[in-house]
């Protein structure tokens, strides 16, 4: 325990990697010019936005002036958010890849430091940059406060929302750069990752903004209660930072929940980066796997609470509340998580004879390897993830709605399980053919695209049912139910599809086992004996 505390203190305080980067950052005038340019730009843009708003001749009443000032403030925050989105990923996107290409990574890892030390050091160093970005923008935001467009507590809330996003972006950059072979791919993939994150979170943000300004059916009125996830989108920080979520009767500011999410998510990403930099059976991999489950549980709780309380989110799937419709909503979520798990399957399941020990064949199924992280532990780990989501939803719903989820939840969850087992079987089968790791993985992904994505446009173009009617074209094709049993009326069949998927997945995996047992394969595996 004391050793653990000492290690943690050593990682976060006086981290040598952070000190080294700090020294390099402070050197020379480049940083100074950069900051001056940034501040100048901010003042210029702020001034432009301000004069636009103030030039409005009709802005005479106090009320309109107030709203103009408010929108000036949110423009400023939006601008800072854009800078954070552009700069934060760049701070880390190249760091590990650059060190690997410069051949200085070996020097560090031949010293007794775990990857986490280096990663946290890079995070700390980049964090200082990010803070600088926000602090330098203070004069501009202060103008808003002085003129009455916002209060200091608004500014603090918005800043923490921006900081949380920045932390996530930096962690995405580190996670990508720990794996990327070249600087180019590292930077491109980081921005793709950031884009995907923004796309996901903008769904929440848009829902919120629509409810705020559209005055539509979401009916949030003028209270600031909103699902916590709205703070995940940085651009709308000015609007979302005053919101709160009611948890057990207490108004918890959403920026706190957003920060908790950002810290947990970046921790997960950093574990991922650490695991990628470590060999077989490393503590980093174990930590990644455990954090994966913990994070999913946390996310499940954070999603399930507002859902079971039927706040605006219910509109995503079920207009009315009650165990049966919410059973469907939660069931769709489990099925969606299972579908997202498809992207994990190549990384977790595939094995190859020439790969590192992490990815070498070690049997079909081993509970113990689920946490150690080798191909035989892939299925149990995926089942753990699935089970975690199911258990969290059941528990949270039982706790907050005092009821069991309806039967549709179980039908769709069963289908999610079938989906996972099937693609596990596919990945096992491809891996048994003796190709290298990259080919095995891309075969799985290619098959996934052929089976899951292509039939959608092709088959739906074959049917002539028009959109907007009560029977959309996709759902009238039985084949696709295997892949998307999501229509509310169709979930009764989901368990049958699930059974079929499980059986064929296991059959494929066993065929793969038979392949592995053949001596020819073993000789090709170049084993040492």
């Amino acid at each position: 325990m004391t050793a653990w505390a000492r290690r943690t203190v050593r990682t976060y305080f006086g981290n040598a990697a952070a000190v080294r980067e700090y020294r390099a950052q402070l050197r020379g005038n480049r940083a100074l010019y950069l900051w001056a340019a940034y501040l100048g730009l901010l003042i210029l843009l702020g001034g432009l936005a301000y004069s636009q708003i103030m030039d409005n001749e009709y802005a005479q009443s106090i009320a309109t002036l107030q709203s103009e000032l408010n929108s000036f403030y949110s423009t400023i925050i939006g601008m800072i958010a854009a800078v954070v989105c552009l700069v934060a990923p760049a701070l880390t996107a190249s760091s590990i890849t650059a060190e690997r290409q410069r051949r200085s990574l070996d020097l560090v890892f031949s010293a007794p430091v775990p990857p986490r030390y280096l990663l946290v050091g890079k995070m700390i160093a980049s964090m200082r940059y990010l803070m600088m970005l926000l602090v330098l923008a203070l004069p501009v935001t202060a103008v808003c406060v002085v003129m009455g467009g916002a209060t200091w507590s608004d500014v603090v809330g918005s800043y923490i929302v921006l900081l949380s996003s920045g932390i996530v972006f930096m962690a995405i950059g580190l996670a990508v750069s720990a794996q990327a072979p070249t600087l180019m791919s590292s930077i491109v993939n980081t921005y793709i990752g950031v884009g995907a994150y923004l796309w996901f979170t903008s769904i929440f943000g848009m829902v919120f903004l629509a409810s705020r300004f559209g005055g539509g059916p979401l009916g949030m009125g003028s209270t600031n209660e909103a699902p916590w996830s709205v703070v995940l989108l940085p651009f709308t920080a000015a609007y979302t930072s005053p919101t709160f979520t009611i948890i057990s009767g207490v108004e918890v500011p959403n920026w706190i929940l957003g920060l908790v999410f950002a810290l947990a998510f970046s921790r997960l990403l950093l574990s991922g980066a650490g695991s990628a930099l470590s060999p077989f059976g490393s503590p980093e991999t174990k930590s990644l796997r455990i954090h994966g489950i913990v994070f999913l549980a946390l996310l499940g709780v954070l999603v399930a609470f507002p859902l079971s309380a039927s706040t605006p989110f219910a509109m995503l799937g079920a207009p009315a509340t009650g165990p049966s419709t919410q059973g469907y909503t939660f069931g769709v979520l489990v099925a969606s998580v299972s579908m997202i798990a498809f992207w994990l399957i190549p990384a977790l399941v595939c094995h190859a004879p020439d790969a590192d020990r992490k990815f070498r064949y070690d049997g079909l199924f081993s509970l113990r390897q689920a946490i150690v992280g080798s191909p035989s532990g892939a299925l149990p780990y995926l089942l753990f993830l699935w089970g975690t989501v199911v258990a969290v939803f059941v528990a949270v719903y039982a706790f907050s709605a005092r009821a069991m989820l309806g039967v549709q939840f179980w039908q769709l969850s069963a289908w999610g399980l079938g989906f996972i087992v099937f693609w596990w079987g596919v990945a096992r089968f491809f891996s048994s053919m003796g190709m290298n790791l990259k080919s095995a993985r891309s075969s799985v992904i290619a098959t996934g695209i052929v089976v899951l994505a292509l039939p959608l446009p092709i088959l739906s173009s074959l049917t002539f049912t028009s959109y907007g009617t009560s029977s959309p074209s996709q759902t009238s094709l039985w084949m696709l139910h295997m892949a998307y049993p999501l229509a509310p009326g169709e979930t009764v069949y989901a368990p049958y599809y699930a059974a079929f998927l499980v059986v064929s997945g296991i059959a494929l995996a066993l065929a793969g086992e038979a392949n592995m047992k053949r001596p020819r394969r073993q000789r090709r595996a170049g084993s040492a004996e």
Partner: protein
Amino acid sequence: MLEVKELWKVYGPLTAVKGVSFSLKPGDIFGFIGSNGAGKTTTIRMISTLLEPTHGTATINGADIIRDPMGVRRQIGYMPDFFGLYDDVKVWEYLDFFATIYEVPPKQRNSVIDNVLELTDLTVKRDAFVQSLSRGMQQRLCLARCLVHDPALLLLDEPASGLDPRARAELKELIIELGRMGKIVIVSSHILPELADFCNCVGIIERGEMLAFGPVNQILRQIQPTRVLAITVLDGAGEVRTRLADMPHVLAAHLEDEHHLRVEFNGDHEQQSELLAALIQANVRVVQFHEEHANLEDVFMRLTTGAVQ
């Protein structure tokens, strides 16, 4: 004490290292010889925990490279064959970085840095930027970096490449000094004569297999069970040659020119002295009589050409 046990490294169809085993004790300076692609770097990287062995393991003073990599790293200093230094920092800051991650207590850091700078003759460059150093100086800085935590085992992968003859000689002195300090030093190199001078132990690796391992003399004897005696006589070399051919343990005698003879001899030292006595008794006017040592290069060439199918 370093014990390497049956290390294997398989890269798909290619097996880079095939069951390398050896052990070294404190003070040993081990020369690791092999042609390009023989598996030296791979072996060294496995010992320094940077590369995962396919099979086998190694232990350093009880710490296992697989089970306790951190324990191993605390005891080793690894200098890669190719490396990049952080070029945006000063020399002392660079060493300070490594002193910190090697857990040198803050109070001792400055004196440790001064010591290693002194040892590697970089004291004047203390406040210079790393990017301003020449290649050889960077090489020495990297070596200095390996020494900040007083490791028990040094793994130097071709440390002499890029050094001028003078720096090379200094490096040699430094390595000998490190051996005297009780460290185990592993030096890989192609430049064979250089290693023979100061290594008390060599290993020859070819296509991932350790063909020979042991003290230089022992390997020489293994490769050349018959000795070669070089004899110089004042006159009558041809006559001496026929006389020699009949003597015990003499396998063959060759005439080099009118003064010099080379004799292949398979007796021990006693029989060798008897041979000399016999020559003197026969009134041969011997000027020189000595055993010719094969050099490491010969050994290397012989062993490795044998290994290539």
